[in-house]
């Protein structure tokens, strides 16, 4: 019976103050990168260099969303690698199929001419 006092739910009167500084910092970083992308859309001619810049900026944005918002940065190393290694293989898939697409397109053009 004496244990009953321990079974009481904890007093919820005191709620700690919110700690949201890091959230807003991440938000402004994401807004900044998106704004930068638009600067490149309007000030730079389309081309491989511009596309490379876009992809690098996208990976930066993805890093901030996954590391901070999804909290992956603060998980164990095992979990981080479990997520990142399969995603890394997708980069190979993308490069392989995009070059394959160029080759298919070229072949079709050559056959038509």
């Amino acid at each position, binding site marked *: 019976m004496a244990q009953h006092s321990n079974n009481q739910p904890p007093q919820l009167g005191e709620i*700690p103050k919110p700690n949201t500084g890091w959230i807003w910092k991440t938000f402004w970083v994401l807004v900044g990168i998106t704004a930068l992308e638009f600067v490149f859309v309007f000030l730079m001619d389309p081309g491989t260099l511009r596309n490379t810049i876009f992809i690098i900026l996208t990976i930066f944005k993805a890093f901030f969303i996954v590391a901070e918002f*999804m909290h992956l940065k603060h998980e164990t190393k095992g979990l981080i690698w*479990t997520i990142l290694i399969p995603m890394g293989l997708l980069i190979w898939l993308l490069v392989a199929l*995009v070059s394959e697409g*160029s080759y298919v397109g070229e072949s079709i053009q050559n056959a038509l001419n």
Partner: protein
Amino acid sequence: MATTSTTQTLSSPSTQEQPRTGTWDGGNEPFKASYGKLMMWFFLLSDAFTFAAFLTTYGLMRHRHLAYTGTNEAFEFSTAYWPIPDKVFNAFPGLHGIDLPLGFVALMTMILIFSSVTMVLAVEAGHRMDKNDVQKWLLWTILFGATFLSCQAWEWSHFIAGTDEGTVMEDGTRFFGANLQRNQYGPVLFADLFFFITGFHGTHVFSGICLLIWSFIATTNGTFEKRGHYEMVEKIGLYWHFVDLVWVFVFTFFYLV
């Protein structure tokens, strides 16, 4: 009296729910993450494969078709080459006929990033067991999510209806807008991939909103408060951030590149 209380203790659920501690009876937490969170991560990984397959297909098909080689100003829609996204997505609701390249998409991106922020704020409030704050931030997230979805609905209807001028197709007829067989913007696959990729993403946003509404009701009813933690909000948060993450990639590969 003593016997009765023992029986009660044995049959009460608290005995069955005693934490397991052994290595092989479920007492382990691999990666120091709870079962639910870990499974959400693996689900998101598999979902990422699906989206990666879509975006890779987009890359393949785009490179398989001819690219437009003229100047940006002289660009005209034609089924012969892949269109420049700035020229397709340049409309804004209420500003008919004004050329605003990617303006509406920029707004949609901002809305979704902001909904991600309100979601983290809800998760953060959950850590502090602050029921009111969780409710407030969940509501904001639902609002921004629904706004994003409405924007996408407008984007779709504009894409389907087409421009005022339309495009003279290969058979000499003038065609307006897009469907799965024909579209005025470029090769057939351009519109198909637009519908599939943004549609699949929109479906994810819709499921996310359903989950958020459910968790808002559960928060209001005090379900998580009684449970002693807001981990469910955290898991739905992971899903919601993933949807935002996918949009970041769709935005780059469909609209910018």
